């Protein structure tokens, strides 16, 4: 079932900069939908360093990544943005004119389509994707013998499963898949695990009972005629190698960011970032803006605060596309009753 949504603006990326753009657009009566590949909002702040303190957000001597995201969510609440999480924008097509831009945006997972008057790319370093271990020819087994996520547990019933990694995903799936797998092997590079202690304990007791195997080492190559996986060659710390028979391998090495489909949208790119002007932060395609870490211009600093500024200026130009007939009055939230009404704080 495919949904179609008409809105003013689609924001690609729900990191801090995308979130604050909702605020700046909202003050100008512009409605938006945000799309993010992660299952949660906050981008890098929430995914990479939720607990890390940030010291250079104006007005916050110290705030954690997650704390900043939570505050931004509270700040944009009056504008009721719609979030489409776990979705990646697959295509972005221009169907308007330079004077009256119109875009068709399509996401991959649910195939939701959007029609909008402007697109703001606030995609940071790109879309988060599973980190793939650099093993020769691993791609040839993907989807048949190598999986980076578990979507359906049943797929692994009765299989010889090799899980690689030492974090929460690796340990959670170890204890969840162990009962249904024919044999489960966990491989990690060292005998220390960064996962919830009770899950690690559970894994250790399964190993002690002989119900699964734990090996220390790293996969160096895969065996079996692709796409059929038959085993993984593992190198131990002392350099010796052995093979673990397996039908499937699940590497859980965390996430990394890839530019992804953005490269196919007809935008000028310079070393994986998008050049913009510094008046409107618009790309070479009128109506498509880029703000935050994903853009570049002379003097660019990849700071969250720069992204906030960029969003505010982009919103001014977006207003002209969304309301071509309306004159935009510059106002302050401290003094404007109309802005205060939008924020739900008018006396």
């Amino acid at each position: 079932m495919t949904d179609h949504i008409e809105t003013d603006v689609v924001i690609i990326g729900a990191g801090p900069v995308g979130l604050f753009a909702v605020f700046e657009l909202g003050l100008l009566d512009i409605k938006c939908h945000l799309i993010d590949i992660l299952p949660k909002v906050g981008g890098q702040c929430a995914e990479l360093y939720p607990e890390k303190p940030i010291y250079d957000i104006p007005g916050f001597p110290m705030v954690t990544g997650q704390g900043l995201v939570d505050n931004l969510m509270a700040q944009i609440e009056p504008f009721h943005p719609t979030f489409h999480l776990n979705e990646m924008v697959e295509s972005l097509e221009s169907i308007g004119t330079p004077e009256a831009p119109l875009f068709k945006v399509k996401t991959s997972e649910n195939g939701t389509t959007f029609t909008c008057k402007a697109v703001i790319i606030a995609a940071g370093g790109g879309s988060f994707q599973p980190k793939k271990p650099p093993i020769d020819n691993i791609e040839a087994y993907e989807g048949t013998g190598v999986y980076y996520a578990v979507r359906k547990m049943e797929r692994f019933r009765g299989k010889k499963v090799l899980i690689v990694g030492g974090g929460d995903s690796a340990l959670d799936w170890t204890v969840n898949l162990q009962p249904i797998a024919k044999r489960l092997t966990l491989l990690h590079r060292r005998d220390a695990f960064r996962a919830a202690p009770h899950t690690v304990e559970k894994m250790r007791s399964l190993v002690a009972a002989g119900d699964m195997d734990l090996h220390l080492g790293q996969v160096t190559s895969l065996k079996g005629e692709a796409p059929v996986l038959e085993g993984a060659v593992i190198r131990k710390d002392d350099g010796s190698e052995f093979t673990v028979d397996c039908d499937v391998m699940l590497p859980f090495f965390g996430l990394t960011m890839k530019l992804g489909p953005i490269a196919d949208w007809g935008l000028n790119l310079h070393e994986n970032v998008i050049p913009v002007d510094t008046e409107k932060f618009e790309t070479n395609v009128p109506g498509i803006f880029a703000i935050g870490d994903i853009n570049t211009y002379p003097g660019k600093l990849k700071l969250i605060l720069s992204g906030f500024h960029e969003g505010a200026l982009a919103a001014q130009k977006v207003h002209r596309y969304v309301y071509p007939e309306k004159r935009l009055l510059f106002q302050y939230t401290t003094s404007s009753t109309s802005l205060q009404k939008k924020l739900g704080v008018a006396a």
Partner: protein
Amino acid sequence: MGVIHVTDRAGQRHTLEAIEGWRVMEIIRDWGLPIEGLCGGACECATCHVFVAEEWLDKLYPPTEEEEDQLDTVMTQPNSRLSCQILWTPELDGLEVTLAPTGA
């Protein structure tokens, strides 16, 4: 003043002027070699993974538990380090590192 030697993924060795107080990742990035340093040096991504020449390993501060956690997410060798966790000091003049392969 001093230098570091960095071998890129094509096998070419570059000699880069180093700056005291900079992380090795930052020196490599500043000279324009392809090192990602995605998280900006927060020890949260392992995209600045390098192999350190054997003779230099003992001269470095040993990796923290945090760095080991990140090294878990890449294919390591015994001489693997995250270059964002190596602060350059004049004692490291001549440090020899190789950029680790990036995943697909």
